[in-house]
């Protein structure tokens, strides 16, 4: 087994180093090409919490030094969006929970729910500040000045004054920064929970909890800063990630693969029957995920040219692509499976929907519906191929976290650089540099997530151990980790 795991490691290294070679070539050309990006485009993405001088030229016509005004429409939509993203987490819990054997359903559901608990606190204490606090230099991380969500409220004559989150300081609309902070909190929660799909049915709960805390702090928070913060180095390069293709899906999927190297396969894999115990639960989860994803993607219009786009046309575009791409993804996976395996399975359709959602996430507000259909259709086939890799390469990604999110996230980030036409242009519009920038983002985020996760997993493996005992695994994690059973 060790040999095969090192084979996976080798393969991943090769897969990552291939684009690195491209990267070396590309870095030389990227800088001038980058200048071609209009400042308006750059500003269009600015999620700058702090005043971003770079963003100011974006709206030269707007009056300067105008205090931002609370936009209640945007605020209402962002509150709803944040709640919808939270709703994705029980959706994920059911999606994954239905796919495991009956003896592990509660433990699998807990992997998602406990992420809400741990990250909910971590985000308030340090996560938000590390991600969206003022840059400590180099665009790598935020400082701790916003720890405990400090500074988001002040008092004047005893009355509360709420800080407003604004992308462009002179824009007329803004939302309370608390709302932005919580919207982003939900992203952090679900991202680490996505990884649990690769670890299901054998990971020790205590090790998983420590992993959630460490991974969110050491991998997610920096990546969010790199990509979404106006001071982040990938943001400055012009990397496009509308709602988290790189930060959320690629990072979690690649990390899942890194974790597997130390975790190993489930006992009996792949010879024993490990079929899903409740596909209706899984399909319910797919539906909840799709519903919540509208908040995930259409809520991410907050990073638009100004806050008034949070509930504007850009949100409408993201909503439309988030409907179209997963619809196409469900169909294409179904058809691919129909041709390849003989039957159109429910799990296949549901997986295709999720694949379509993953792939459209980085592109949601950058592409038009025609491209969304193409991306969705490709997503179903590419991710179906991604899960088939597991059988070929003999690693045990229990619920295909890598196959769907790692492969889909990478594919989505790259195709965003091909199809972008709104607020940015991609390869098809003749903008080669944008595509190369996407390659840089994919390689940098993927390599960082892979390496840091390897280190975290290694440390946990050597200290508290990652796996339950063989006997406990056979008995089931619900009983041995939680003293509960799902069905009595």
């Amino acid at each position, binding site marked *: 087994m060790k040999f095969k795991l090192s084979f996976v490691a080798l393969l991943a290294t090769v897969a990552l180093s291939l684009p690195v070679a491209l990267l070396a070539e590309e870095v030389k050309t990227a800088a001038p090409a980058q200048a071609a990006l209009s400042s308006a485009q750059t500003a269009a993405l600015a999620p700058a919490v702090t005043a971003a001088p770079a963003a100011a030229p974006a709206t030269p016509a707007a009056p300067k030094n105008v205090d931002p005004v609370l936009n209640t429409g945007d605020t209402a939509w962002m509150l709803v969006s944040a709640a919808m993203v939270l709703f994705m987490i029980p959706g994920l819990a059911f999606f994954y929970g239905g796919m495991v054997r009956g003896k592990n359903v509660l433990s699998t559901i807990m992997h998602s729910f406990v992420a809400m608990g741990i990250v909910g606190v971590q985000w308030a204490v340090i996560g938000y500040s590390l991600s969206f606090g003022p840059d400590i230099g180099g665009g790598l991380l935020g400082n701790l000045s916003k720890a405990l969500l400090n500074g988001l409220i002040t008092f004047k004559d005893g009355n509360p004054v709420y800080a407003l989150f604004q992308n462009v300081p002179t824009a007329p609309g803004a939302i309370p920064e608390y709302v932005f902070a919580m919207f982003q909190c939900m992203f952090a929660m679900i991202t680490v929970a996505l990884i649990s799909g690769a670890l299901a049915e054998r990971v020790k709960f205590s090790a998983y909890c420590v992993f959630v805390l460490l991974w969110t702090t050491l991998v997610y928070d920096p990546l969010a800063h790199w990509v979404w913060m106006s001071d982040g180095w990938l943001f400055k390069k012009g990397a496009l990630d509308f709602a988290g293709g790189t930060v959320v899906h690629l990072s979690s999927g690649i990390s899942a693969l890194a974790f597997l190297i130390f975790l190993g396969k489930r006992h009996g894999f792949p010879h024993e029957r*490990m*079929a*899903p115990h409740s596909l209706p639960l899984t399909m319910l989860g797919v539906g909840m995920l799709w519903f919540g994803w509208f908040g995930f993607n259409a809520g991410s219009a907050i990073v638009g040219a100004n806050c008034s786009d949070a509930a504007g046309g850009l949100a409408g575009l993201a909503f439309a692509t988030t409907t179209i791409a997963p619809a196409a993804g469900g169909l294409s996976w179904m058809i691919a499976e129909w041709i390849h395996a003989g039957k159109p399975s429910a*799990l*296949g359709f549901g*997986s295709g929907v999720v694949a379509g959602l993953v792939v459209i996430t980085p592109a949601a507000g950058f592409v038009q519906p025609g491209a969304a259909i193409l991306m969705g259709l490709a997503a179903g086939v590419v991710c*179906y191929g991604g*899960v088939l890799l*597991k*059988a070929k390469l003999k690693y045990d990604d229990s619920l295909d976290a890598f196959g769907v999110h790692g492969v889909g996230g990478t594919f989505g980030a790259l195709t965003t650089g091909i199809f972008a036409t709104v607020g940015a242009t991609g390869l098809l519009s003749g903008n080669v540099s944008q595509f190369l920038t996407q390659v840089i983002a994919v390689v940098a985020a993927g390599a960082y997530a892979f390496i840091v996760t390897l280190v975290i997993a290694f440390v946990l493996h050597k200290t508290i151990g990652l796996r339950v005992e063989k006997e406990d695994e056979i008995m089931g994690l619900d009983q041995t980790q939680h003293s509960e059973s799902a069905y009595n």
Partner: protein
Amino acid sequence: MKLIEAIIKPFKLDEVKDALTEIGVEGITVSEVKGFGRQKGHTELYRGAEYVVDFIPKVKIEIAVADEVVAKVVETIENTAKTGRIGDGKIFILPLDEAVRIRTGEKGAEAI
């Protein structure tokens, strides 16, 4: 006396029961069972992972009958449980030494 055991497809149970009642069979025992015959099991496919399911759900009915009606009962089951497709099941006929009606203590054919 004979004990007739028939393994049939679950969806045929009602039809077989009605036909047996019509020819005067007064009691049957039904169990949900799993098994396989010559056709073996079937395969299930989840995201490309193929699992062979060895045991297929079936229904087993048991009927105790007097010797003279055995042929008729067997024929009735055979006719009603038949679909002509693979997996229709089997009928087994076993000798039955004794039968006792618990309530009255009657024995033999009287007890059936």
